[in-house]
């Protein structure tokens, strides 16, 4: 009975969401029809048509892979470095104090300032890697540090008493405790890395990137191109987020089964 109720509840939620999406598309269509100016706003159908034609263009895949590789690299490097820094800060209070001003600065400085500053330091081709890294680092660091600090002290005492080595402590105590913190940090920061990474590309205009395509859409007043590329960015971001979180959860399941 409960199973049937749950099924009907989730079915209702899906129906509600479909209805909301259809409604939003209708609002978009109505807005585009009212404006009646394809430079300002194209209809959803025009956008979809443009999306298909973009997919057939020779440089579509190379632009997507150019941005994908750089933004994902920035995210992954931030994940590794943020975790290591949080591990050190969780163990040594002095390290936490020393790292604190850097993290606060990265958090508060506007992304546009970083982009311009980085354009002076770096080539525009590696800009999105660094910007994605900077946007993700504080989120990963803060979440992981919070997770490490909230590790069950009783379990740590138990491990100390039984002389458990650090590798086993990591596997049996820290990682399961950090699981919700890692998942939440990654799910927030993946979307952010894509937003900041493409913003950096629009300003830096590296050749052959999605950012360059967005910039060209702006120059030629092509709202069709702009919306089609935006859709590609959203799709790439969501696909990577779902895939990464799936692999992360699979890793934790494997860890618990091992």
């Amino acid at each position, binding site marked *: 009975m409960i199973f049937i109720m749950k099924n009907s509840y989730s079915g209702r939620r899906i129906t509600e969401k479909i209805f909301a999406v259809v409604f939003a598309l209708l609002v978009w269509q109505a807005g585009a029809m009212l404006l009646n100016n394809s430079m300002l706003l194209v209809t959803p159908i025009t956008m979809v048509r443009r999306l298909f034609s973009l997919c057939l263009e020779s440089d579509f895949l190379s632009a997507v892979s150019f941005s994908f590789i750089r933004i994902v690299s920035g995210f992954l490097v931030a994940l590794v470095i943020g975790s290591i820094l949080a591990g050190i800060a969780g163990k040594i209070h002095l390290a936490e104090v020393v790292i604190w001003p850097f993290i606060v600065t990265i958090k508060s400085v506007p992304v546009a300032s970083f982009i311009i500053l980085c354009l002076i330091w770096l080539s525009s081709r590696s800009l999105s890697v660094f910007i994605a890294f900077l946007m993700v680092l504080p989120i990963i660091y803060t979440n992981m540090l919070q997770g490490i600090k909230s590790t069950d002290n*009783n*379990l740590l*005492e138990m491990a100390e*008493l*039984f*002389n458990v080595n650090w590798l086993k402590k990591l596997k*049996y105590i820290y990682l399961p405790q950090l699981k919700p913190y890692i998942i939440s940090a990654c799910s927030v920061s993946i979307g952010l890395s894509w937003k900041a990474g493409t913003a950096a590309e629009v300003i830096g205009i590296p050749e052959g990137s999605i950012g360059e395509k967005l910039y060209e859409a702006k120059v030629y007043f092509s709202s069709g191109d702009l919306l089609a590329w935006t859709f590609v960015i959203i799709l790439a971001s969501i696909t990577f987020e779902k895939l990464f979180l799936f692999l992360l959860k699979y890793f934790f399941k494997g860890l*618990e089964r*091992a």
Partner: protein
Amino acid sequence: MDIVVSKLSKSFGTNQVLVDFNITFPEQELTCLMGPSGCGKTTLLNILMGFILPDEGSVRGVPKLKSAVFQEDRLCESFNAISNIRLVCDRKVNTDKIISHLKKIGLKDSLDQPVSEFSGGMKRRVAIVRSILAKSDVLFLDEPFKGLDVETKKDAMQYLRDNMQGKTVIMVTHSIEEVKALNGRLITMSNSI
């Protein structure tokens, strides 16, 4: 080597738990500590285990290899019983040995399930087996049979009796039957110590 506690004092704020407390725990013997709640039994165990420092006094002769059943089970909830025990054991203790010990204490089923799905009594028995299979010279037991029903408690006591030989054992308990069943030396603590 005996564990010798001399002139031990410990207070938490204004609450003096242990005052000039002296005791010797003979090597390879079971000593049972009984007394009303708040008289300092668990505090004494925590000092012996090295979790808290005394305000005054000294503790000598605590072996390096220690093992314990804590008042709380202190198990890694997302892992199964075998993994929880493997965590504290060296490589000589294989899965077959762990399973045979779990069976001895009456845990035959659900061994591949995370302990978060276990009942309180099942978790307690996993904690007891863990304390036995970990390589140790001293075993601290803080109310090890808490939450076990009569039958399970009997099995657990039998299991402990069979497996704690050769170790110095210090057990905190509220039950005189447990002291008798395990044939331990009884020390009664009071709030006025």
